[in-house]
């Protein structure tokens, strides 16, 4: 068997130029595909992380039917036993109680429909880093005050120190209305948070919406998102299912996931086209390698080498090419991926505006997940094996006498 590997290795380097050109095409394809895929998956990870960090969390406990109808009537009572169970769980990074409801915000003649988010200021900052995004005034405190995004402030023509009116519907149909001073303005990279969210403290939200000892939801962020099922299995049996329900980030970010799915499909098509082009190159090389050695193969069969072993030699040659090409490609792509992982590309100008409109941070983050890199290796390997099917078939059909006599 070792002879077969040695023979295949030497055969590979018979025509060095051709092998180098084929390897270069594989290397080039792997670099492009790895980087493209890294950017694509990185942007998905960023989108999901933004959604999880800023709104949903990995897991959310909410009142029964709240997910279907986000009315405060479907909110949940505070369960201190559950709170302590979650807070003390080592899998949990942070657990944030929230009271959220749609309201109208008004200042002067300007009014806009917004989402009012009642949060614990410290926990919210821990989760989303909102404090660092303040551009004017102070971060949210427990006082009766609001902080708003710079776009909303611009729209309302309001500034720090001005007071806005919040008008909406509280728990059990009560009118929720109040006048709150703006203590701070933040600039959030996600357009929707800048334009349509008003942050107030949890206590203020309780008063505004008459949600005493009630919450819209409890968002839980995990230290490691793969522990989601583990935590779900701990929480779920403890919950009174007639009052509560639990949703995971997949359900809560369904639209994002659907967008990712369709975008991913086109990304895979693009990479598929790239690899198909390379596949034909590999096919051409393997075919040439077989066709130019037909006489040699015929002699080998004549002196007693089984066709099966000859096929193995050619397969090993294809595998060598795939392994060398993809490993060199990955070795060259990895520093590039690593660089852009730590130095993500930040868009400015019109491109940034476009991202902002789609509620995305204008940053191209590259994923560092190893699985898509391993996938490039496997794709090249499978591609090379597929590309060798036809050449292998020609070995099976070889008429050794005709070839040795030079008649085929």
């Amino acid at each position: 068997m070792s002879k077969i590997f040695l023979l295949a290795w030497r055969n590979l380097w018979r025509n060095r130029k051709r092998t180098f050109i084929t390897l270069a095409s594989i290397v080039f394809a792997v670099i492009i595909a790895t980087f493209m895929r890294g950017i694509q998956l990185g942007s998905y990870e960023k989108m999901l992380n933004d959604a999880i960090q800023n709104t949903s969390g990995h897991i959310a406990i909410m009142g029964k039917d709240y997910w279907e109808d986000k009315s405060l009537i479907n909110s949940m009572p505070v369960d201190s036993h559950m709170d302590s169970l979650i807070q003390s769980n080592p899998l949990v990074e942070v657990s944030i109680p929230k009271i959220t409801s749609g309201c109208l915000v008004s200042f002067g003649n300007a009014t806009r429909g917004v989402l009012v988010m009642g949060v614990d200021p410290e926990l919210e900052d821990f989760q989303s880093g909102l404090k660092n995004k303040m551009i004017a005034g102070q971060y949210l405190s427990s006082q009766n005050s609001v902080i708003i995004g710079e776009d909303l402030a611009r729209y309302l023509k309001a500034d720090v120190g001005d007071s806005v009116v919040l008008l909406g519907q509280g728990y059990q149909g009560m009118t929720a209305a109040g006048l709150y001073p703006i203590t701070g303005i933040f600039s959030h990279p996600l357009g929707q948070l800048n334009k349509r969210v008003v942050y107030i403290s949890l206590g203020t939200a309780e008063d505004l919406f008459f949600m005493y000892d009630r919450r819209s939801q409890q968002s839980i962020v995990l230290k490691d998102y793969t522990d989601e099922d583990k935590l779900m299995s701990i929480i779920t049996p403890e919950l009174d299912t007639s009052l509560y329900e639990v949703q995971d980030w997949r359900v809560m970010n369904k639209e994002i996931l659907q967008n990712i799915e369709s975008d991913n499909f086109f990304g895979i098509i693009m990479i598929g086209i790239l690899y198909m082009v390379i596949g034909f190159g590999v096919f051409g090389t393997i075919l040439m390698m077989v066709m130019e050695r037909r006489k040699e193969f015929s002699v080998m069969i004549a002196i007693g080498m089984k066709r099966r072993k000859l096929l193995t030699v050619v397969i090993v040659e294809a595998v060598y090419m795939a392994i060398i090409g993809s490993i060199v490609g990955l070795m060259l792509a990895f520093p590039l991926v690593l660089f852009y992982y730590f130095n993500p590309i930040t868009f400015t100008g019109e491109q940034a505006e476009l991202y902002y409109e789609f509620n995305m941070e204008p940053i191209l983050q590259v994923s560092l997940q190893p699985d898509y890199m391993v996938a490039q290796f496997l794709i090249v390997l499978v591609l090379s094996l597929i590309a060798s099917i036809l050449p292998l078939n020609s070995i099976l059909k070889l008429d050794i006498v005709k070839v040795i006599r030079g008649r085929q």
Partner: protein
Amino acid sequence: MEVIITKDLEKIYNPDTVPVHAVNGISTSFEAGEFTAIVGPSGCGKTTFLNLIGGLEAPTQGDISILGDSISTKKKSEMTDFRLHNIGFVFQAYNLIPVMSAYENVAFIMELLNRPQAEIKDRVMELLDAMGVGDKAHQRPHQLSGGQQQRVAVARALASKPKFILADEPTANLDSHATETLLDLMLKMNEKEGTTIIFSTHDIRVMNKARRLVKMDDGKIVENGKPDTA
């Protein structure tokens, strides 16, 4: 002892279009230890006859028995195995594997037979020394002359100690000195190892070295006997 017996052997190419009787009803036999030349003009059927008794081609009609075993009905894969164990081949164009050294080319057959490395080493060096190319053991075919390559090819054919060797015009590409040397070496190995050697040629100098001559014409044996009588 007869090692090869052919009975009414026929090979017809293009039977459905323009039939060509390359071998036309040959019945003959070859004894163990023979050093036989098959001679005749180009296109007389020498190579086809060698291919048939070497199991590279299947006859259209007739039977070939090697060591008492009929090979006419064997499957391709069975024939490959049969050749590996019983027949050595020497080709006109040497046909050594270019990416292997002389040593590796000779060892290749023994490795296919899964012989132990120590045995392979001894046998290969013994053969290369006997063929006068022991000092070229680690050179690749393109670094050897035509005569040296053909001597390596003969060593390769002998490596597995086959029952017989079939050589198709082994000296056709060699000059007179290389031809002489190769034939002397083949004769020496025939005597030393007792291997039956059957080769085709149309070179008169080569014919004179043979102990038996089989003359062919139009796919038939027209004369058969010792060189001075044939």
